[in-house]
């Protein structure tokens, strides 16, 4: 008979303790947390409404203009316009707008939270050595595991979907902010200190501008990860393209899954093109100076 692993302590009891503890948190703070996140929910819903209310050609024009502003190249603007048009063509326009809203709000919040954490990491070795393993765990933990506590706290809906997306997508912006600031030429930082710049002045006038290409690469990765999370987040009520994929699975209807999947791919390419061409242009303008 094969020998089982000896039970050194009672794991079931530990599990029960975690569950009851978390249930207690849900009971005590659930309502408070919901109230705290209400404004974010409103922002998300408003964003979704606006995107779906706008005439389709306005959205195409806005995205193309964004692409041109980022790249200063007509080719990329045209490609973005064509791809956005294609999203409407395959019949997933409204779902795609909902997905864009979720992705944009998730990325925005990830940047607002992640940037200061990255900055703090770049300034303190201890902060870095605490944060890095946490980020590693966040990135290796299966995505589904995040869904459980958020659903328990908020019930199925857009807020837990948004929060799980943020947790999943935030590591790159933190990592690359830290990396970018640490990579700024120490001689330049020393020069600004020699001229009497305060730590805040050094951060704002030198470190962040010079780290910007790296930080933007992090934001781009965060955007892509948020987009890849939409299918999974739709299981707990995120709606959008992911929901249509989920329906395809449930109804064993390959066409609906395929069209929605194609929509996600198109969105990914559109936002990646915009972010990357901006990053590249910025890098070039800094390169020029070295």
């Amino acid at each position, binding site marked *: 008979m094969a020998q089982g692993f000896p039970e050194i302590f009672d794991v079931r009891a530990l599990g029960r303790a975690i569950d009851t503890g978390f249930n207690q948190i849900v009971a005590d703070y659930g309502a408070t947390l919901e109230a705290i996140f209400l404004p974010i929910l409103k922002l998300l819903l408003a964003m979704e409404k606006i995107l779906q209310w706008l005439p389709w050609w306005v959205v195409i024009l806005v995205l193309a203009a964004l692409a041109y502003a980022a790249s200063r190249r007509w080719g990329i603007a045209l490609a973005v316009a064509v791809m956005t048009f294609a999203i409407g063509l395959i019949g997933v326009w409204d779902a795609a707008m909902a997905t864009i809203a979720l992705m944009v709000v998730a990325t925005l919040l990830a940047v607002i939270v992640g940037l200061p954490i990255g900055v703090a990491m770049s300034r303190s070795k201890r902060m870095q050595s605490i944060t890095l393993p946490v980020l590693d765990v966040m990135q290796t933990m299966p995505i589904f595991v995040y869904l459980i506590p958020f659903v328990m706290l908020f019930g199925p809906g857009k807020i837990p979907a948004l929060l799980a997306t943020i947790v999943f997508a935030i590591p790159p912006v933190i990592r690359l902010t830290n990396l970018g600031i640490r990579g700024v030429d120490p001689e330049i930082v020393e020069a600004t200190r020699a001229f*009497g710049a305060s730590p805040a002045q050094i951060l704002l*006038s030198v470190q962040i501008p010079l780290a910007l290409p790296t930080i933007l690469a992090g934001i781009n990765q965060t955007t892509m990860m948020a987009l890849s999370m939409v299918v999974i987040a739709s299981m707990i009520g995120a709606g959008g393209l992911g929901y249509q994929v989920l329906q395809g699975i449930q109804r064993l209807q390959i066409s609906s899954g395929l069209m929605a999947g194609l929509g996600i791919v198109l969105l990914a390419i559109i936002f990646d093109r915009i972010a990357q061409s901006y990053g590249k242009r910025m890098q070039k303008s800094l*390169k020029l100076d070295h």
Partner: protein
Amino acid sequence: MTTPFKIRVEQVSKIFGPDPKTAMAAVNAGMGKAALLAQSNHVLGLHNINLNIRAGETFVIMGLSGSGKSTLIRHFNRLIEPTAGRILVDDTDVLSLNAADLRSFRRKKISMVFQRFALLPHKTVLENVIYGLVIDGMPKAQARAKGAEQVALVDLAGFENHYPGQLSGGMQQRVGLARALATDAEILLMDEAFSALDPLIRHDMQLQLREIQARLHKTIVFITHDLDEALLLGDHIAILKDGVLRQVGTGPEILVSPADDYVARFVRDVNRARIVTCGALAVPGQAGGDIELSADQTIESAYAALAQTDAPLTVRQANGDLAGVLTRQQVFDALARA
């Protein structure tokens, strides 16, 4: 009581490592640099440095790489904190300044030029030049007007809106110089400021610095590993080796009477006839004859006069006082020392 000295460095030592205080005690007890590194993994960067720098002079600190000269210059504006000792600027102990006072000291009193320029690559020439003024809170328009003057002073008018990467090395360093001059700081620290430039540009920059200095009378602390540069620019020269000062003096003093073998070897290849003045070699005495030499002219420029006669020549100070006499034999002796 005030002293004639702008900057005084008193018994400054710097040890790099995890526990510099303990290591300092060991050094004070007589441990040498090599033993310290072997036994406790601390590096003795500077040991018991004493310097007095006069207002309005160019003071050159010279040494080869690893001598501690770049560490030393960073003590003047406290980019590096000493392990022991005091640094006084205008009788203020720089080490006693708190963070806010130190920032104000760096903004108003002391500025710096770096070996590899250290310009901000994302800002234009003009924005770089006014960086010190802007962080000190000067209104943009006023700073830009002032910056434009500095840009013109270093002959870069017309390049205000270029980015550093579009300029040659020599031009970039002139931006660095303009940035340092813009804050009207009385003290200018120059850390191997011209070492990264090619020889012709370097010589132009040296002459330009002398010209600017003749007008502005800053107190300049200049770091270099180049003896010719030190002799050209320095009113006083300090020679640093392995974190210890070997000799401090004027260029001619160091050439004529090097303090030790190291300094002697260092200065061996210098064309001393171009540096040593007649005054430095003159011995007490009185001579006849009509030909007179001035104390601050170089030996080389006196060759023609010396060639005319075997007799001693009178050497006079700039104010007409007698400085002594000089003979051909003395000149040959001095030049033959190498």
